[in-house]
C-alpha cells in the first residue's frame, strides 16, 4: 500500500473516530412501530352511549367441518355470560365477523434437539378445536391461520413479517432462541410462548406457559431430592459451551453446598461444566471418576442427548443401578420408552402437571379428549396451555377486545394456574427475571417430577390430587415442602 493511501486511510479513520466519539446511541423508541402495550382507555366511550347491539352467535351455526368430532361430547368450559356475545369489531388485526386469527412461529425444521417443538402447533390447534366445538368465543372461531417456521433461529424476520402483514391478533412462539421478542413486544402483539428464554422477561406483551424463573438460584429442591432417594454424594454436569447450562449447574452446586448440613451432610463430589454439546468425546472418564468417588445422584443441565450418553456410560461401567439421575429435559414418552433400560428409576422434571398425575382439572380432561390420536409431547401441552391463556385473556378483555385490552386483561390475572396445570402465576408482577427483581418470583417455588418405571412415567412428587411439591419462596431456611394443587 502506498504511503499516500495509508495517509488517506488513517485520516479517514481519524475523522470517523472523532465523529463517532461525538455521537451517542439512539433510544429504543423504534421507527414506525405501532404504539406499544397500553390499552386505549375504554372510558373514552361514554357510559350512556349505547354499545353496538350485541348479537348472540346463532346456536345452530355450523362448526368447522374439518374439526374432529370427539367422543364423548366435551364438557364446555365454565362460561362467563358474555362468552357468546358478538360485537362487530373493525380495525383489530386478524379479527373479522367469523374468525379470530393467530400466527405461530415455531422451530419446525433444522431442530437438533430431541424435543419435538413442532408439536406446539398441535396443542394450539387441539385447544382451538375444543373451544370452537363448544361455540367459539364472541361468535367467532379461533384459527391458527399461519404457521411460520423459525428454521432454527430465524424468528426475528418471521416476527417482523408477521407484524407487517398485520393479519393476526396474537403470536404463539416456540423456538430454541427468541430473537424476535422485541419486535413483537414493541409492536404490541400479545405473544404466548414456550418460556425457556430470558427474552420472556421484562416484556409486558409476552407471556409464557410459566413465568420468568430464577436461573441458577439457590433452591431446596436439589438437596431435597437427594434426601428422598437416600443419596448423599452428588455429581453435576453442565455444557461447557452454553452459559445457560453452566449457570444452571452452578446453581445446583451452590444449592447443595448451602443446605449440605440439613441434607444429611450431602456433598458435591463431582462437578464438570466443560463437556461439549454433542458429546463426541463421550463421558467415560467422568463416569469412572464419579464411580470412584461413590456419587449416588447425578444432576444435569443437559438435553436428552446428553442424558442418554451419560446413562449409556453408566450401564457400560456397571454402575447404573447405584445412581439416580435427575433429568431436566427428558419428559418425552417415546424417547424414554425407547431407552427404558437406561433410565429405570430416574427422576424427570416437568414444567406442568404431568399427564400421569391424578388431578381434578377439566382442562386436562379436555386435553386428553382433543389430543386423542396425536402423539403426545411436552410441547403439545405447552401449546395447549398457551392457547388456553389466550382464550382466558380474550374473555377477560370482553367482546370489544383488541390487542391492548387483551394484554391488559392478562396482566390483571394474579393467581393463574391454567386450571391447576401449572404453578400459580401472578402476571401482574411476574414480568422481570427474579434474578434481577426478587419481587417477580413465584410465591411458591414448586416442582413436579415423575419417575421412570419400565419405560414409562409415574408421578413422583406430591400426593393424589396434589401433584406439586412447594417451598415458600420467602423462606430460605430448610423446611419440608408442602404438597399442593393449584386447581380449583
Amino acid at each position, binding site marked *: *500500500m502506498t504511503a499516500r*493511501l495509508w495517509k488517506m*486511510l488513517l485520516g479517514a*479513520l481519524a475523522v470517523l*473516530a472523532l*465523529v*463517532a466519539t*461525538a*455521537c*451517542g*446511541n*439512539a433510544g*429504543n423508541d423504534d*421507527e*414506525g412501530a405501532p404504539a406499544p402495550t397500553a390499552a386505549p382507555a375504554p372510558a373514552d366511550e361514554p357510559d350512556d352511549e349505547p354499545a353496538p347491539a350485541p348479537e348472540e352467535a346463532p346456536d345452530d351455526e355450523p362448526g368447522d367441518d374439518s374439526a374432529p368430532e370427539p367422543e364423548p361430547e366435551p364438557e364446555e368450559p365454565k362460561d362467563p355470560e358474555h362468552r357468546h356475545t358478538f360485537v362487530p369489531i373493525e380495525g383489530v388485526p386478524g379479527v373479522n365477523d367469523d374468525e379470530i386469527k393467530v400466527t405461530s412461529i415455531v422451530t419446525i*425444521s*433444522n*431442530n437438533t*434437539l*430431541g424435543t*419435538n417443538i*413442532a408439536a406446539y402447533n398441535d396443542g394450539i390447534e387441539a385447544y382451538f378445536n375444543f373451544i370452537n366445538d363448544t361455540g367459539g368465543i364472541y361468535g367467532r372461531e379461533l384459527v391458527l391461520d399461519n404457521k411460520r417456521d423459525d*428454521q432454527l*433461529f*430465524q424468528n426475528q*424476520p418471521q416476527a*417482523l413479517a408477521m*407484524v407487517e402483514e398485520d393479519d393476526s391478533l396474537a403470536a404463539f412462539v416456540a423456538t*430454541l*432462541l427468541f*430473537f424476535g421478542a*422485541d419486535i413483537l413486544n414493541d409492536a404490541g402483539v400479545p405473544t404466548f410462548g414456550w418460556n425457556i428464554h430470558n*427474552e420472556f422477561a421484562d416484556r409486558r406483551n409476552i407471556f409464557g406457559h410459566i413465568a420468568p424463573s430464577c*436461573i441458577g438460584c439457590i433452591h431446596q429442591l436439589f438437596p431435597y431430592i437427594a434426601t428422598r432417594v437416600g443419596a448423599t454424594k452428588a455429581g453435576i454436569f453442565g455444557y*461447557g*459451551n452454553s*452459559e445457560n447450562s453452566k449457570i444452571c449447574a452452578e446453581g445446583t452446586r451452590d444449592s447443595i453446598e448451602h443446605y449440605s448440613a440439613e441434607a444429611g451432610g450431602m456433598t458435591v463430589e463431582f*462437578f*464438570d461444566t*466443560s*463437556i461439549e454439546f*454433542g*458429546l*463426541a*468425546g463421550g463421558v*467415560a*472418564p*467422568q463416569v*469412572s*471418576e464419579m464411580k470412584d468417588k461413590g456419587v449416588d445422584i447425578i444432576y444435569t443441565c443437559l438435553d*436428552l*442427548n*446428553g442424558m*442418554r450418553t451419560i446413562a*449409556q456410560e453408566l*450401564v*457400560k461401567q456397571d454402575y447404573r443401578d447405584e445412581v439416580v439421575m435427575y433429568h431436566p429435559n427428558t419428559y418425552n414418552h*417415546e424417547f424414554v420408552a425407547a431407552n427404558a433400560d437406561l433410565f429405570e428409576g430416574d427422576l424427570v422434571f416437568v414444567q406442568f402437571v404431568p399427564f400421569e398425575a391424578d388431578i381434578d382439572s377439566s382442562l386436562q380432561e379436555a386435553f386428553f379428549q382433543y389430543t386423542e390420536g396425536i402423539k403426545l409431547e411436552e410441547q403439545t401441552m405447552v401449546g395447549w396451555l398457551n392457547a388456553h391463556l389466550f382464550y382466558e385473556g380474550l374473555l377477560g378483555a370482553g367482546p370489544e377486545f383488541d390487542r391492548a385490552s387483551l394484554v391488559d386483561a392478562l396482566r390483571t390475572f394474579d393467581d393463574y394456574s391454567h386450571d391447576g396445570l401449572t404453578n400459580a402465576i401472578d402476571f401482574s408482577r411476574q414480568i422481570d*427475571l427474579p*434474578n434481577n427483581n426478587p419481587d417477580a418470583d413465584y410465591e411458591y417455588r414448586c416442582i413436579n417430577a415423575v419417575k421412570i418405571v419400565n419405560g414409562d412415567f409415574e408421578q413422583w412428587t406430591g400426593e393424589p390430587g396434589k401433584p406439586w411439591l412447594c417451598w415458600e419462596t420467602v423462606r430460605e431456611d430448610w423446611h419440608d415442602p408442602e404438597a399442593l394443587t393449584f386447581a380449583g
Partner: protein
Amino acid sequence: MTASVLAAGVLEDTIRAFFQGLPIGAGFALVAMSFVLTYKTSGVFNLAFGAQAFISAATYFELHVRRDWPIWSAVLVAVVLVAPLLGLLLERLIFRHVHASSAVAKLVISLGLLVALPELFKLIVDYNREQPFGAVGIIPDGTTIYRLFGRYPVTRDEIAAFVIVVAAAVALAALFRYTRLGLRIRAVVQSPRMTELNGVNADWVSSGSWMLSSFFAGLAGVLLVPTTSSLGTVLEPTGYFPIVISALAAAALGRLVSLPAAMFGGLLLGVVTTQMRTHVPRDNVILAELQGPALPYVMLFAIIVFWPAIRRQVAGADPLLGVSPPPPALAATSRSKGMTIYTRIMALAFFTAVGIWTFGYANNFWISRITHSVIFSIIFLSIVVFTGLGGQIALCQVTFAAIGAFGAMQFAQRWDISVIVGMLAGAAIAAAVGAVLSIPVMRLGGIWLAIATLAFALFFHDVLVKYSWVGGSLFHGRGVPRPEFLGVDFSSRENFLILCVAILVLVGVLVILIRESSTGMALRALRGSETAAESIGVISWRSRVIVFSVSAGIAAIGGGLLAMEERLVGYEANFDPQTGLFWLVIVVVLGTRTVEGGIQAGVAFVIFPELVLHRWLGLDGAWRFVLFGFAAISFARHPEGLLEHGKRRSQAMMQRMFARRQPAMATAGAPAGAGPTTEAEAETGDEP
C-alpha cells in the same frame, strides 16, 4: 507404600482411560481414513464428507426406522447402493470436470456440496415431515457389553467400529501398496492422461475410486450413529460436523495421504481426549476448556501449524503448483466507453427505482431486508478482499463479523459508549486478531489455511463466546441500540438504511483503493508466484498481514451494523461457523474480485430466498442452499464468479453485434489480431 499405591492408582487410571479412548478414537479414525481415502483417490479435500455420511445414515434411518425395513436390506440400500452411487454421480457430474483445477477450487466445490447435498436429500425424501428421532445403529444388539480382560467395558457397536477401522486400514493400505489397481488409482490422481497412455481406463478408475471413498463415507455415517449421542437422538447433518472437524486433526497427522497415520491419529486423538479428562484437573478454567470444547480445535490448529510433516508438505510442494497465470482483467476494464456510459445509466436508473420504492412504498419488513442485504454486502466485501484480491480461502470471516457485533454490544452495554465507537473498536480488535492469526497460518496457503481458519472460528464459537467479556451476560441480554451520529438519530429503519448505504460506499471505495494500490498489485503478483513476487521485491508477509487484517476489520464493521439493525447480537442466527461456509460459497459463486460481486452476493443472500424462492416460486427456503451450493461447482471453471463471467459474455456478444453492424470499420480500422474482440471474448471463446 503410599507412593506405590498412588502410582498403581495412576497406572490403573491411565490404562482404563486408554481403553476408554479407543472406541472414541475408532470413530475419529473411521472419518479420518475416509477423508484420506478421498484425498488419495481424487485429490479432493472433501469437506462434503459429512454430507455424504449423513445421506447414507439418513437413508438407513428412513428405510429401517421409518419404514420398518430389515436391517440388512436397509444397509444394503443405504451403504452398498446409495453411497457408491452418490460417489459415482459426484465424480461423473462434477469432479471429473475439475480434475486440473486448484486444490482451493476443489475445496470450494466441496463446501458447496456440504451445503447443498443434505438439503437436497431432505427435500427429495421430505425428511422433515416429522422429526428424525430415534436413529439406531446397524449392528444387531449393538449395546451388548463385553469386558476386555474381564474389566474394561466395550459395546458390540464399538467393537464393530474398531474392527472395521483396522480391517479397512489394512485392506486399503494393501490395495495401494501391493496391487496394480492401487497403483492405477494413485496414477490417475496424479495424471489421468499419462495413465491412459498405458492402456488404463482412467475414467473408470476415477469413478471406482470415488465409489469406494463414498462407500466408506456412508459406512462411517451409519457406524457413527450409535456411538454419537446427538446423532442417535436426532439425525441431522450438523451432528457430523464436530466429528469431522475432530477427525481432520487425525487426517492432518498423515498429511491427508497416509491411511495408517490417519488411523493411528484417530485412535491417538481418542486416547489423548480420555487421558486428559482423567488426569487434568477441572477446577482451572483453561485446563477445563482444554478437556472439553477447546480440545479438538486446539489440536487441529496446532497440528496444522506445527506438525513438521505439514510444514514440509507446504514447503516441498511442486514449485510450479503455486504458479498461476494472472487472473484476466475485469470486464469493466475492457468495455467500450459507450458501453460504460450505458451500464452506468442503467445502474443509476435501477438504484434510483429501488430507492424510490424503498423510501416511498416499502414496509418495515422490506426495509429491514434491504438493510440486511446492504450489511451483508459489506461483510461479503471482506471475502472479496481476502479471496478475490488475496487469492486465499479463509473460513473465519463470520468470526470477525461476530467480534464487530460483540464489540458494539459491549461498548454500549458496559460503558454506554456509542455503538459506532464500539463497532470501530470491534473492527480494530478483529483486525488485530486477523493480523496475529495470519502470522502462523499465512505460509500454509491453500486448504491448510482454510482449515486452520475454520479451527479458529470453531474455537471462538465453542469456547470464547460463552464468556461474558466476549458474548455478554445471560442476564443482561445481547441488546444493541442504534446510533446517533452527527446529530442525526438513526433509530428509524429508513435513517439506519441510509447510514448503512453510506458505509457500504466507503468500504467499497476502500476495497477499490486497495485493489489499485501497491498492496493490491503485490497480492496479484503473489497469486501468480510467491517466489517470483519476492524476487522482485514484494514483501509477501506484509501484504498477507495487511489483507488479512483489513478483511477482518471490514467483516467486523458489517457485524456491528448487523447487530444494530437487529438491535441485538443474534449470534446463533448469524454468526455460526457453518453459516460462514455458506457466505463463502455464495460470494465465490457470484464474484469475488469486484465490489459489485460482493454487493450482488449480499442481495442474493437476503433478497433472493425471500422474494424469488418464497414469494414468487413458493419454494422452501432450503432451496437457496441447494442452488448456491451446486452453483459453487462453477468456481472451478469461472473463478471470477458467475456474474463477472456473464458480464464478459454479454459484453463480448454486444461487441460482436457491434462488429457485424460496422464490418468496414472493424476491418479497415484495426490492425491484425486486434479490434473489438478483446480478452473478454477470448475468455468466452472456449465455452461449450
